[in-house]
């Protein structure tokens, strides 16, 4: 092997054989986009390719003028000698792994992904490959996600308790993906209406437009004049915490839904009343399971705990090294909180 099929460059992950980039962070002629989070889908590229189910979200992020080509999962496309296809990553609506085939070699760049079932997006499909590029956001053995249904039940009970004492329930979470997943997971028998922060409402509409069924919601800005929010659930991005926007809620009970809430110190430091462990990233056991299922002999790591994961995989007899990327530095993508 002379030149690796994918290599990090100044502009992003680059496939020289097919002359395109994956989730580049500087303007390029051809960009394959794994999903619509800001650290992966940046504006300024000449042409975009992405999974069709996420086009609505991507269009909102990139604007009307962006040239975006939608691909069905599994549909193949040629970039010179390289055959490319997109496959579900299970991260958020329209998230995709990028499969590249060139001569006898198969690479998969997985973007961000998770293995837990998520009613708002297609489930991750393991793809056999020689080289697997994986995220390492939560690649430490302390990160093991609880059953999502149990977490949703906890949130629901917390909401019921708050509503019974006339306190507004304000749940902070990332605006794209987590918010909609939480909506979809909430059990029935809701104690009050659900309101969305202005940063979350349009993205939620995009989900509905893509055919995802979600419970009824209203933007906070369109609440009736006499609404006191005392039995409401309000979903807002973390940036709204402590802002003047919060003043409209009397005695709010606040919670944060994130994989980082797995750690007690994070829960306490962030100053929310409750922390709920729910993540759109892969946890430690699923990460190892996925690497095994891909059959990859070489693993390249991005985000977070890349170095630790590499060391561990090498000790397990795999070939592994970290890839330098700029992913994971955006607030709406489970960026490190401290």
């Amino acid at each position, binding site marked *: 092997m002379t030149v690796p099929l994918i290599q990090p460059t100044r502009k992003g992950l680059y496939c020289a054989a097919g002359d395109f980039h994956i989730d580049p962070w500087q303007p390029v002629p051809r960009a394959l986009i794994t999903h619509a989070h800001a650290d992966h889908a940046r504006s300024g590229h000449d042409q975009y390719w992405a999974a069709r189910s996420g086009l609505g979200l991507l269009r909102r992020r990139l604007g009307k003028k962006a040239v975006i080509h939608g691909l069905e999962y599994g549909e193949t496309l040629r970039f010179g000698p390289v055959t490319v296809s997109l496959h579900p990553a299970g991260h958020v609506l329209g998230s995709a792994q990028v499969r590249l085939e060139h001569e006898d070699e198969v690479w998969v760049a997985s973007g961000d992904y998770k293995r837990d079932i998520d009613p708002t997006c297609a489930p991750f499909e393991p793809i056999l490959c020689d080289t697997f590029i994986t995220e390492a956001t939560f690649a430490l053995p302390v990160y093991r996600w*609880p059953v999502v249904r149990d977490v949703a039940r906890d949130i629901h009970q917390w909401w019921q308790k708050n509503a019974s004492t006339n306190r507004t329930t304000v749940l902070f979470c990332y605006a794209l993906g987590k918010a909609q997943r939480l909506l979809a997971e909430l059990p029935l028998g809701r104690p009050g209406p659900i309101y969305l922060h202005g940063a979350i409402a349009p993205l939620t509409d995009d989900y509905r437009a893509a055919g995802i069924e979600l419970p009824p919601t209203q933007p906070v800005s369109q609440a009736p004049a006499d609404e006191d929010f005392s039995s409401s659930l309000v979903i807002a991005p973390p940036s709204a915490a402590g802002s003047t926007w919060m003043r409209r809620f009397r005695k709010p009970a606040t919670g944060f839904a994130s994989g980082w809430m797995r*750690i*007690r*110190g994070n829960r306490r430091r962030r100053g929310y009343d409750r922390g709920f462990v729910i993540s759109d990233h892969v946890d430690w056991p699923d990460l190892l399971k996925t690497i095994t299922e891909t059959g990859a002999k070489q693993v390249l790591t991005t985000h977070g705990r890349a170095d630790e994961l590499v*060391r561990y995989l090498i000790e397990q007899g795999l070939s592994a090294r970290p890839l330098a990327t700029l992913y994971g530095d955006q607030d709406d993508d489970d960026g490190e909180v401290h």
Partner: protein
Amino acid sequence: MQRFAQLFQILDEQRGTNAKVIAMAEYFQSIQPKDGAWAVYFLSGRRLKRLIGPVQLRQWLADISDLPIWLIEESHEHVGDLAETIALVLDRKGGQATIDQRGLATWVEEDILTLREMDEEQRRERVVSAWQRLDAPSRFLYTKLLTGALRVGVSQTLVERALARASGQPQAVIAHRLMGQWQADTAFYQGLFDERSGQEDASRPYPFFLANPLENPPEQTLGAIDDWQLEWKWDGIRAQVVRRERAVYLWSRGEALIGEQFPDILAAAQSLPVDTVLDGEILAWSDQVMPFSALQRRLGRKRVSQKLMDEVPARLMVYDVLERNGQDVREQPMSTRRRYLEACLVNADPRLMPSALIAAPTWQALSEWREQSRERGVEGIMLKANRSTYATGRPRGAWWKWKIDPLTLDVVLLYAQPGHGRRANLYTDYSFAVRDGDNLVPIAKAYSGLTDVEIRKLDHWIRRHTRERFGPVRSVEPEQIFELAFEGITSSPRHKSGLALRFPRIARWRKDLGSNDVDTLEQAKALLS
């Protein structure tokens, strides 16, 4: 264990103190007494002697999780708490551990304390099997108890409130019953709920009554000077001496028995009538008071030599009488207690000295007396309302301390960072906090004021009591109290506390104080002029 783990979770998640009190009270009312006793023990900040070190625990975790030790260490560093790391790493999705029905007392007494008599292999087997049996929250708690440090985030006062609520006893009675050293057993727990007083443990001290710093000139706020008993504010170790028929007990404000360090005072107290309890200040004294640094030589040792006692003789400056002829007299007014005090010291050993009263006919005259504080080796003046009872804690209004400059606060060490140059690799840059409800709020950094010996001691302590690391900064168990002196205090929106201190420096390492003695943010704000 299950019940206690549930309670812990509520306390950990709730931020409101009322909700915490209610949760604890419900637990106390419905729990088996022997389990309740241990719950009180841990919730009030008491701890077991550490039985197993972190190196062993990490190794056992690596062994049973089939993970390399370096990855366990990375995880520990990331999480910042070993018990939590263990609880999380061994967590299995859906793999519900069988519910353990055994209570907290059984766990502590049969599973933890018995580890003392075991060899390493038996300990390992016992601990690992417990880890595998328990669910994650219980596993966390169990390991916390094992490592000797359970920080629950409730103050002693909240525990007292909860027990008062659960038992129907006044909080002051509960506070008294929680003082001193006791066995966590059924009898103790039932004693907390007992209707009758007079069942109290004979050695037990009473809760100390504390003064608030006087912020405004007394003529503006305190009314007529005749209503006040005026004394010097001595700079020593606040202590309580409990004289019983068979023994004398000397207690510090940190609820430690310190008689071994002051056999001269124990001996002097034999001259008191049986069943007398006095409140006072231990001072180093030869003809007149010696500096606090002299007294410090008497602290922290198991044995005090005759030579040291000759060099640094100790006396008790007696402030108050709490019990007289076996009768609790704390509800009597100050003026009455003062008469008792003088009467009971008439024939007493001269090492027990009544605190002299200052005769000042006017506030102006008192102010002039105060100017002499430095020369007299005192910190200022105490003002106690003649009508004041001996209350619990630090209620405002009855007792004031009118200190001379500089301003000081008793603060707790929260973070430490290594210094540079000569102090490289030594933790010498400290961040201190005051209390704000149940939270600790950083209020100042200080770099000076300790001797080199103290710095090394503190450095050693910091390394052994680190809670979390943030790069070079360590957060430590909030246990070490320092008297911080500073020249002024101003509002500052840039600081989390909203306050900025001018020229803060460590006046003294207050080893005699515990975490309950940390001053509050409110007290700090009250110093704003």
